[in-house]
């Protein structure tokens, strides 16, 4: 069951790699939020109600509802065009995403340890590197934020892998998510939209040494 869910999460990454519109990205992020909740629910066996509530709040409420709606609100408010405007072609993106997944699989095969479910490691690292790739190859500031949200999802998966032994780390990870989302999205993107009319990274190059 968990394998199916995690592989679905991996497939959403491929979908994201070739998506053209920002709305698709937002929808994929919402789907990932729901997937993460189910994974957490199945994976954490002896979970106390308080923790479950916390995870529910984080995945369903924050990741699947609040953040996507807020992103849509930002898109509308700042009249951001609907194209993602990648620097590279979709075909190339797909190849690189495949390479990322293959490399993490190869990396995980070098681990000689029975303790860890390898699939968690593979999915988490692929998601992490895919998030970094997304940040590096898209032109808009808002896609950088989406890349960061993808990275956060990867970390959530990784924290679930150790969640049964150390529930504290899952809570810490959730704290990080909420903290960073509020800081980056809440305070910041609002301001950036007001000051930089076309929200494009090319505008963020005025801080220079000379």
């Amino acid at each position, binding site marked *: 069951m968990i394998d199916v869910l995690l592989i679905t999460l991996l497939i959403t990454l491929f979908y994201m790699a070739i998506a053209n519109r920002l709305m698709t990205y937002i929808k994929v992020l919402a789907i990932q939020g729901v997937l993460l909740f189910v994974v957490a629910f199945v994976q954490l066996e002896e979970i106390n109600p308080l923790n479950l509530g916390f995870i529910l709040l984080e995945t369903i409420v924050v990741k699947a509802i609040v953040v996507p709606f807020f992103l849509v609100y930002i898109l509308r408010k700042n009249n951001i065009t609907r194209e993602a405007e990648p620097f590279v072609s979709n075909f190339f993106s797909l190849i690189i995403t495949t390479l990322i997944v293959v490399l993490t699989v190869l990396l995980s095969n*070098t*681990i*000689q*340890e029975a*303790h*860890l479910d390898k699939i968690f490691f593979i999915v988490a690292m692929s998601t*992490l590197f895919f998030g970094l790739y997304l940040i590096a190859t898209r032109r808009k*500031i808002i896609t*950088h934020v989406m890349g*960061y949200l993808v*990275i*956060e999802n990867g*970390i959530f998966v*990784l*924290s679930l*892998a*150790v969640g049964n*032994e*150390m529930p*504290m*780390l899952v809570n*810490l*990870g959730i*704290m*990080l998510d909420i*903290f*960073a989302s509020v*800081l*980056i999205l809440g305070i*910041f993107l609002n*301001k*950036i939209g007001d*000051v*930089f009319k076309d929200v494009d990274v090319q505008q*963020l190059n*005025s*801080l*220079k*040494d*000379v």
Partner: protein
Amino acid sequence: MILTYLIGALIIAIGISVNRNKWVNYSLAGTYLLLQWIFTIYACFHLNETDLGYFTYDSLGILLLITLSIIAIPAMIHSKIYVENHHESGAIRAIYFLSMVGLITAIGAGYLANHIAVTWIFTEITTLSASALIYHHRNKLALEGTWKYVFIGAISITFVFIGILFLSLSIQLSGTGHMSYASLLENAHLMNPFWLRLAFLFIFTGYTVKLGLVPMFTAGVDAKDKAPAPAGALLSSVLMNLGFVGVFRMYIIVANTPLHHWANLVIGISAFLSLFVATVYMIKVKNIKRMLAYSSIEHMGLVMLGVAAGGIGYYAAILHIILHAFVKSSLFFQYNQLYRVFQSKSIYLVGNYFKYNTTGAMVLLLGFISAAAMPPSGLFVSEFLIFRSLFEAHQLVLLIAVLLLLTMIIWAFGKNILKILFIPPVGFNENNVPRISPWESVTQFVLLALAVYLGLNPPVEFVHLIEESLILLPH
């Protein structure tokens, strides 16, 4: 006591944000300094005791806490001068002091944390309060600086968290679930080397944003450029020390495993690249604040080279970060007076500073001598010890390369500083130069003198504290 301290800081912060009266703000900031010092003195008398379960007053923490408390006093004084000169509105002033209190408290608590996750949490809080300080001017450039700092800070803090997760995987084999530094150290030999390697890489990379090393140094430079100079002084000295604490405490654990040599290699490569990057930028930089920020990167590179070389290098590294904090913060405090005279931070538009503000120019000259590690600067002693440690580690090629890079840095730094001090600027209108009271520079002289004193004639307790903080490293 630390609970009282944190709650007290919180109450003061709330007080500042609720009441925007100028004098209420200042007196609350003063009260905070008093609280900070009471806490520091309390900590000194309770060496190696654990407080609240997650904080230990160990020697490294105490040393850096004292450094922080000393720098906090001039930081608040210069903040007051800064805010008055800019005629800030009540709200902006309140947010400024609120963030200063938050930043200093978070840095102090981060030094003392004995649990890897607690250090991480307080590092996160410093990102938050620092970003409020960087955004102080609320214009386009400030926004750009803040955005970069927040974004790269968020990614780095995420990296540290991934490192902590890997660390938890590596200790699962040893059968303990507790992640305090002491218990990690105890089980160091049982850890799975694969996970430990990954953990160290991620934690190190994450903390470089605070420490100011390759690869994440860029955001810090922008931050120090856009933050008001008194805040920049904190970012460029005590906050970098927090990054050092994060890396160093993890390094102690790795050093007690067979991965010691590998960790030295990682740190050494990053440190050398930082020195190289600092040299390249120092040669072409024309923005005075960024020049000071790149100089900090150079010093942190040297510190980490000392750590990588080992031996006497450990001692030199800790001495160096403390002295560097005093010198660099005093230069940043001085920068504010320079800006008031010339209204520009470009080296092209400033010059002949001796004519307009003699006391300030003296600070700049002495600060340059200190930062370039020429005798009688205290940094001379620590840099010399770092070179010696490299020599003793048989890294002659590296040592020669480092010395060449340092020569270039001193040349570039000196060229710019001497231009500021002696060469008259072109097209500068002398009529509107404000008179700057020499009293404003007193704190800067004190900080510079302290760096000389601690370097040349370190008190016995000081040496003892440094040695005690290295006791857990293998010899």
